[in-house]
């Protein structure tokens, strides 16, 4: 079914179910309890996880399959965001045209940048993509201000034409919607102290990310995906086998650019403000990190990486000294203070430090990322019955 093998289909269905049930699964702790801060089941965070999962899955098509490390993919995020906001301004607050345009624009710019960058490989390719991204960023910040809003960013305003929408009755900017379904619409379910929020925006992001995941899965299993892996392996042999590696690479680059464009579009759809800082090299670095952390070249890795990083970012940023003292209060006072002092730089504002450390640790000790880590653990406990489920979850991702 769906052109997938039985194993892949099961895998996809599990991903779909997890996505649908995420608002419940990610909210395991009762509201108001001490652990409630570890809940992740609120719309804003889940949206971000889904969006970055799309971005990372797309990036993995390029980096994971072909081994070409782009350091400029954030440019496509930015372009997608701007495309989205312009559609919201000019056409309609319905996100569909924006999403389509964002994807196409991401692809178009990827075609342009890829055409030039792919004439070089290795570190030169990385630097060329980085140069293009920085160039886009600088231009968005300065000379293109009429289009990008420059430093202030770009967002829908009251006076925008929005030719497809009826004039707003009450002098406010209409809500971002999908055929009338507001992205902010949330159904709250109170169940034994746990509040579950089912948000329309999240389900749009989540279902789209499952769909994009499905497309990527097909691509991984296709002859095209096989050719991309062959490029990573031995481009020389591939050429002598009668295949032209350049258009294959360019296609992979454009496809991953379209994923990024779509992610950028969604970002702007959920929070209709597009800023140039989304294009900076830090943002490009972040997606590399997600893919590496999860597991390069695996199916599930980038999703895990995106989820892990966005979740930790959210949690770590919320932890302050007060929380730390609470945690360590079981220790003697001097030890409590010492522990707080040690941990303090890594939490709150220091999240990026943790991120950097994590990044280094993964590259040094676990180049295969979380997926490889899971497999290693799985191998260790293979004889235990628990291992069976784990192995099943990781094998389709190979």
């Amino acid at each position, binding site marked *: 079914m769906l052109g997938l093998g039985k194993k892949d289909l099961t895998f996809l269905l599990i991903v779909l179910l997890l996505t649908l049930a995420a608002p419940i699964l990610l909210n395991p702790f009762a509201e108001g309890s001490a652990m409630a801060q570890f809940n992740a089941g609120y719309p804003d965070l889940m949206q971000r996880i889904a969006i970055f999962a799309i971005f990372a899955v797309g990036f993995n098509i390029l980096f994971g399959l072909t081994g070409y490390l782009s350091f400029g993919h954030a440019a496509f995020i930015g372009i997608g965001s701007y495309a989205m906001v312009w559609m919201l301004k000019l056409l309609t607050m319905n996100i569909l045209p924006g999403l389509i345009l964002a994807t196409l624009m991401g692809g178009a710019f990827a075609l342009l940048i890829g055409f030039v960058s792919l004439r070089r490989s*290795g570190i030169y390719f990385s630097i*060329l993509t980085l*140069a*293009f991204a920085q*160039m886009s960023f600088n231009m968005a910040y300065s000379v293109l201000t009429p289009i990008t809003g420059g430093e202030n960013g770009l967002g829908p305003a009251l006076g925008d034409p929005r030719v497809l929408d009826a004039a707003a009755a009450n002098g406010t900017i209409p809500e971002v919607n999908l055929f009338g379904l507001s992205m902010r619409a949330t159904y709250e379910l109170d169940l034994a102290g746990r509040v579950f929020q089912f948000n329309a925006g999240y389900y749009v992001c989540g279902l789209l990310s499952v769909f994009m995941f499905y497309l990527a899965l097909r691509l991984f299993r296709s002859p095209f995906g096989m050719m991309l892996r062959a490029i990573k392996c031995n481009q020389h042999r591939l050429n002598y086998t009668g295949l032209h590696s350049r258009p294959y690479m360019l296609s992979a680059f454009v496809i991953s650019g379209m994923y990024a464009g779509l992610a950028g579009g969604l970002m702007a759809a959920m929070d209709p403000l597009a800023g140039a800082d989304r294009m900076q090299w830090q943002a490009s670095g972040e997606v590399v990190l997600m893919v590496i952390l999860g597991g390069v070249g695996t199916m599930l890795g980038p999703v895990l990486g995106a989820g892990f990083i966005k979740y930790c970012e959210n949690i770590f940023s919320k932890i302050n000294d007060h929380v730390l003292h609470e945690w360590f209060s079981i220790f003697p006072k001097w030890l409590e203070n010492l522990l707080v002092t040690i941990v303090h730089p890594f939490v709150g504002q220091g999240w990026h430090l943790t991120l*950097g*450390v994590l*990044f280094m640790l993964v590259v040094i000790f676990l180049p295969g990322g979380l997926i490889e880590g899971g497999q290693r653990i799985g191998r260790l406990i293979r004889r235990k019955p628990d291992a069976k489920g784990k192995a099943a979850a990781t094998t389709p991702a190979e």
Partner: protein
Amino acid sequence: MDALILQTLNGLDKGSAYALIALGLTLIFGTLGVVNFAHGTLFMIGAFCAVTLQRLLSLSQVTIDPTKKDFLGNALKVKTPYIEAWFGKDAGAAIVNWSVPLSILLAIPVMLVVGFVMERGLIKHFYKRPHADQILVTFGLAIVLQEVIKYYFGANPIPTAAPTDFAGSIDFGVWMGFPPNDIIYPYWRMVYFLFSVVVIGAVFAFLQFTTFGMVVRAGMADRETVGLLGINIDRRFTIMFGIAAVVAGTAGAMYTPINSPAFTMGMNFLVLSFVVVVVGGMGSLPGAVLSGFLLGILESYASMNWIKDVIPGIDQIIIYVIAIIVLLTRPRGLMGRKGVMED
């Protein structure tokens, strides 16, 4: 004409910084074969050595002067920097005033230690790993170092003054027969340019005229053969890493009066320095220096108003445009060697 000279001069100081960072990057790449994304961070750490020294020097002891009263009628508290207490008022004040150049003395040992620790502790393990892994791990390291600096010094730029002796500007145009106030150039920028010339000259002389340098150059050209001669090339390469770190660090320390140091400066310079290295030719030391100055000056030209009128925004992107053109037409860069980083 005078505008052109002015812009050339203006480009020199940025070009100097590019050249110094690119030189270190190339040294590390040429010797260790490692693409070091944390090199800009070394520049930044050097800059914060200057900040640290300035802060250390302004540490004061508080004494109570019973002979004077403050406006509340209490005995006046007088802050005297320790340095003035120890060396006398004039000498102490002079030392504080000269804290930026003096910070080189602090930066050298600090950078050597940082460099050695980095190389022995981390980069050593990545010689045999793919370049992508090297990029990633040094990128991670750059984030970590950057965040550590941010943690201790805050996110805002910290103004760091040059010695008052160099505070003014020189009327450069008068020397060349232009009317006064036509070409004005701050003294400190000139100092920075001269400093970079000296450092670059020293590095080249070191490589050219010492036995150590000769071995390193031989090792850059053909590591295996040199290894077969029974020369411990790795240890020398470690030292070269330290030297590259010192070059970047002192460059950063001296740059502080031109641009107030902030924790992001390293990465901003790094991206540009990589472009510089690629334009100059990966692995070519003269190429790195040449293209550093070239791009610095071209960037400065591009910020001239009449050029900006013709091509808006060109000053923001000129370096990248040049890099893209060079990479496409001369993939090895201006002075690159064959076979470097060509997979």
